[in-house]
């Protein structure tokens, strides 16, 4: 299957900027997959998303989304997209529901009607359902957005972006500012959307546990790709697996490890032995000294991520 997103040698330098915000980035995204773009503040994630969603013109490079070039045929690309922007983009003069209605009409999902009551029943049902996903009440949906808290605005943007079912859904830090319950609600709902098929999710986030399940992860730093792969391969390439052992007779344990030909580090609280996950069992079986403690360490994506970013460029 051809990729749903194809990015080749993408470069963006903002007007009057000294450096490229995106500096020769290439990647592809498979249809219906879950893609995570990670990187520290200012890495170029939002810039890349803006170009992929046709709201920013690239300096050079090729970007094809859902079979259409974003520069040559932005209209065709826009028909396939949904997005939650990093910066809130609500009309504060309207009520929450009016913001959603405006969106639904702009996307041609429903005809325009001046009042909520006159909108089709299907629309009203959908708004209720989506509001429930993030935990906005119907009373709140009728309120002026001006009176919303930051997190409520975020929830509203999520409701709005989910009202149509795009081929590619871009989420630029969607859970920033959300309470844990809404965050879980959103991920469960996204899980359902993905299970139904037909939607590719393109995520940026600073909560790395949200990216653990991604089919593909791309880490940017200073506008360049510094790592790419699944959570497993990224972790595997970088983070050391280890086991911490301790025994009443620490010297005996150390001697035994040396005899077994294992490297270890010893400190005041025990010994750390680098070992592959699959190898842990064999190691433990080979030790006769009675152990008082065994701690295995499973690296998280976050550790791998931090390690990658600390590497000299």
């Amino acid at each position, binding site marked *: 299957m051809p990729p749903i997103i194809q990015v080749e040698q993408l470069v963006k330098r903002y007007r009057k900027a000294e450096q490229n915000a995106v500096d020769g980035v290439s990647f592809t995204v498979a249809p219906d997959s879950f893609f995570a773009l990670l990187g520290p503040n200012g890495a170029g994630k939002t810039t890349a998303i803006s170009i992929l969603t046709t*709201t920013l013109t690239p300096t050079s490079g090729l970007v094809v989304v859902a079979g259409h070039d974003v520069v040559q045929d932005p209209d065709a690309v826009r028909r396939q997209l949904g997005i939650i922007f990093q910066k809130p983009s609500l009309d504060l003069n309207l009520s929450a529901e009016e913001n959603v209605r405006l969106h639904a009409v702009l996307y*041609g999902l429903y005809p*325009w009607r001046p009042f909520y009551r006159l909108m089709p029943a299907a629309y009203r049902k959908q708004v209720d359902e989506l509001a429930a996903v993030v935990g906005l009440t119907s009373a709140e949906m009728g309120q002026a957005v001006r009176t919303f808290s930051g997190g409520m605005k975020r929830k509203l943007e999520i409701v709005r972006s989910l009202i149509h079912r795009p081929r590619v859904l871009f989420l630029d830090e969607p859970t920033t500012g959300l309470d844990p319950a809404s965050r879980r609600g959103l991920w469960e709902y996204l899980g359902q959307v993905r299970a139904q098929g037909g939607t590719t999710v393109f995520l940026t986030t600073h909560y790395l546990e949200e990216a653990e399940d991604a089919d593909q992860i791309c880490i940017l730093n200073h506008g360049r790709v510094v790592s790419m792969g699944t959570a497993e391969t990224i972790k595997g390439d970088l983070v050391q697996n280890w086991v911490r052992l301790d025994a009443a007779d620490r010297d005996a344990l150390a001697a035994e490890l040396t005899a077994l030909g294992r490297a270890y580090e010893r400190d005041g609280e025990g010994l750390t032995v680098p070992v592959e996950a699959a190898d842990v069992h064999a190691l433990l079986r080979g030790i006769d000294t009675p152990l008082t403690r065994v701690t295995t360490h499973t690296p998280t994506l976050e550790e791998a991520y931090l390690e990658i970013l600390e590497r000299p460029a």
Partner: protein
Amino acid sequence: MMHQLNAGMTLAYRDVLKLLRDRGRLVATFVFPFIFIGILGGSLQSSYGQTGGMNLFDFVFTGILGQTLFQSAAIGIISLIEDRENDFSQEVFIAPISRYTIIMGKIAGEGLVALVQAVGILVFARILGVSISLPQLMRSVPAMVAVCLFGGAFGVLVLGSIRTQRAANMVFPFIMLPQFFLSGVFLPVDKQKPFLSALSQLSPMRYAVDLIRGTFYMGRADEAEAVLKSVPFNLGLMTVLFVVFLVIGTTRFVKQETER
């Protein structure tokens, strides 16, 4: 097609709602023409009197009406920059609709807002004794709509070369104010100095004001004195300029939006 129309309507409706929900702006909308026509028209009337049989009150009223519609529609377009600055424009520009639909929706919305102001002017003109017959009103309304669209397109043209709200707030008065005097709102253009009279040809607002007068004065004895060009001439010229302004303005505005 239906989709584009719906999208345009919802965008226009947004501007109308914004006006209706802003009490202060709504009051100002109605008070401003009162002060304008009442004080200015009154003082002009007393200092010039009936110049050659022409009723200056009618002249100023139609002038203010055309000027207000044109200017209000043009200046309302600035709120496109406001949308950009608080990032709402992202939401609109990402939508699968034509860029012209976005701009036309905006022009329609600000045009409707301007028409609400026109209602204020008409009401106060009536109170102040300007007589407006039904046929006059029927002829004026389409002309008023045309002026709003024209003013909006002019606003888009100007906005096409401005990036920030601050710049817009500086540039717009600079562009509108001279037209105020060049378009014959208070005094007939052809009674001004030849130099100014010639310069006034360059002011788009002149044609808007003249179109309104054309429909209001139609068939009256003082028509020739008050009106410069025929209704079809003004309407034709405005249509051509509308298309030119719209195309150039939209292209430039969209470019600004995406080429950051």
